[in-house]
């Protein structure tokens, strides 16, 4: 292991858009996370760059979900979960007492592994968060609804039945609705926890294309077990591994480097399918 805290960031990059000049928008510093006594993450430091897609990869139980939920403080909801270290979003410490968690979560959208639409109509699923965040004008809400549903490629499938229950949609449609719901709030950052794992290959492909099309407009952090997918869509990749029963960041870098010329032999073994 490298002890230099900056070892995981590569600094400025040369290559073209959309990451010509990587600006860190999330800076995680020495993050340790524990559930009750059990450590789940140990001393993770990592930068997430603006407008880029960062993939988190690693075996099951290495703390990817925990890392993701720490970024928008969803970990607050888990009893017994405690956090050490700092997370800066736009240079603001999210654990600062004056940080408005609701505003933070509005800026950082999240898509869960299991599609989780509300038991409301498709329309209300998107309108409810909008209304609660102050967009109450009906025409505006309708316009946003159409835009985001088009963004996720769901509009043509559901435009004539916006008032049916969202639970009547297929799993893939539900997941895309959840992405649309997150996009409707116009977040800057999108956290996605294995958004394709519950989907069939076709729906998964649709969602993957969607994520690619969001590149540049949003900063995306995506957890995926599908290495080929990570390789296809991500600009950066972070490889986590369990050491001493706690998840650690082994290597972070440009996606190509992680997959083609990893510095760590664990990473090499994992991405080549030898372990994990």
């Amino acid at each position, binding site marked *: 292991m490298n002890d230099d805290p900056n070892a995981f960031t590569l600094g400025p990059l040369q290559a073209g858009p959309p990451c010509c000049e990587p600006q860190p928008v999330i800076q995680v510093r020495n993050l340790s996370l524990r559930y009750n006594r059990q450590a789940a993450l140990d001393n993770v430091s990592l930068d997430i760059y603006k407008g880029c897609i960062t993939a988190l990869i690693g075996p099951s139980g290495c703390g990817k979900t925990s890392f993701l939920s720490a970024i*928008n403080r*969803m970990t607050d*909801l888990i*009893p017994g979960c405690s956090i050490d270290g700092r997370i800066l979003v736009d240079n603001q410490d999210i654990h600062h007492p004056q940080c408005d968690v*609701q*505003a*933070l*979560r*509005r800026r950082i*959208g*999240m898509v*869960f592994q*299991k599609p*989780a*639409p*509300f*038991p*409301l109509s498709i329309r209300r699923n998107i309108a*409810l*968060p909008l209304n*609660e*965040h102050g967009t109450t004008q009906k025409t505006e809400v309708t316009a946003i609804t159409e835009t985001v549903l088009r963004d996720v490629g769901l509009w043509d499938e559901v435009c004539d039945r916006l008032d049916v229950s969202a*639970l009547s949609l297929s799993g893939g449609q539900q997941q895309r609705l*959840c992405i649309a*719901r*997150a996009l409707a*709030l116009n977040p800057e950052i999108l956290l996605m926890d294995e958004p394709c794992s519950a989907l069939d290959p076709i729906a998964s492909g649709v969602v993957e294309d969607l994520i690619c099309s969001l590149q540049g407009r949003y900063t995306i952090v995506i957890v995926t077990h599908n290495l080929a997918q990570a390789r296809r869509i991500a600009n950066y990749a972070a490889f986590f591994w369990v050491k001493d029963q706690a998840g650690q960041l082994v290597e972070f870098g440009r996606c190509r480097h992680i997959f083609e010329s990893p510095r760590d032999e664990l990473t090499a073994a994992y991405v080549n399918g030898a372990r994990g």
Partner: protein
Amino acid sequence: MLLRAKQQIRDGVIQGLIYLAVLLVSLVFFWMLFDLAHGGAAHLSWQFLTESPIDAGRAGGIASILVSTALILLVALTASVPLAWATAVLLAEFVPAESAFGKIVRFSLYVLAGVPSIVFGLFGNAFFSIYLELGFSILSGGLTLACMLLPILTSTAEAGLRAVPDTYRSSAAALGLSRTVALTHLILPAAAPTLAAGLLIGIGRALAETAALLFTSGYVDRMPGSLLDSGRALALHIFDLSMNVPGGDNPAYASALVLVSLLLCINILAMKLAYGLQRKKIMT
């Protein structure tokens, strides 16, 4: 081969026993229903429902009794439902399940649920009738019933709220919605069928209650003029007719028939709600 046969015989015997038990239970129920209908149907009429009792209930009807029952029920529900549901929301949504506070409240409710209703009656008499000087009145009866309903209403409501999937809460939180918004827009609507079912069970309990009302709302069978008047509940009326009034058997049976029909309706309604809820869960 022999093993197969043995197993089959054992399965058969067990199945037979289960059917027998079911048969016995339903037999008791239908026998009771038949007995009630047999004894009370002849006496039951529109007049019986719309006239007030005469001569201690031997003649006349049960109109004033029905009104008193409804008023007692109204007082009981108005007092207990908001309190119970607020407690349930607190326990299910805001207090960690393992916290000492939650445990203490839950334990008290558990104990309260096991207290015999005659004890509630004595407490109601001492506290509402005497200490608060409400006397024998519909108000003290209703408030005593409210105490009795608290545990059942709270625990059904809490169970209903806990049954709402956590994904609603986490999705709402991830969208930056406050807990109040999640509660009012998502969780309470999702739990509404269980809340309603619990409410109906509570109403059933209250309707059937006798002992707790004996010392609190009293047994004056006149039409009540206000909540501070004494009023006789239906179950108490049956008790009084059959125990203290010679020749009151027929009206007692008829009143019992009315009470059981009411309870039956309420139970069927509760079951419908619970069934609807279950089906909704399977569908989603």
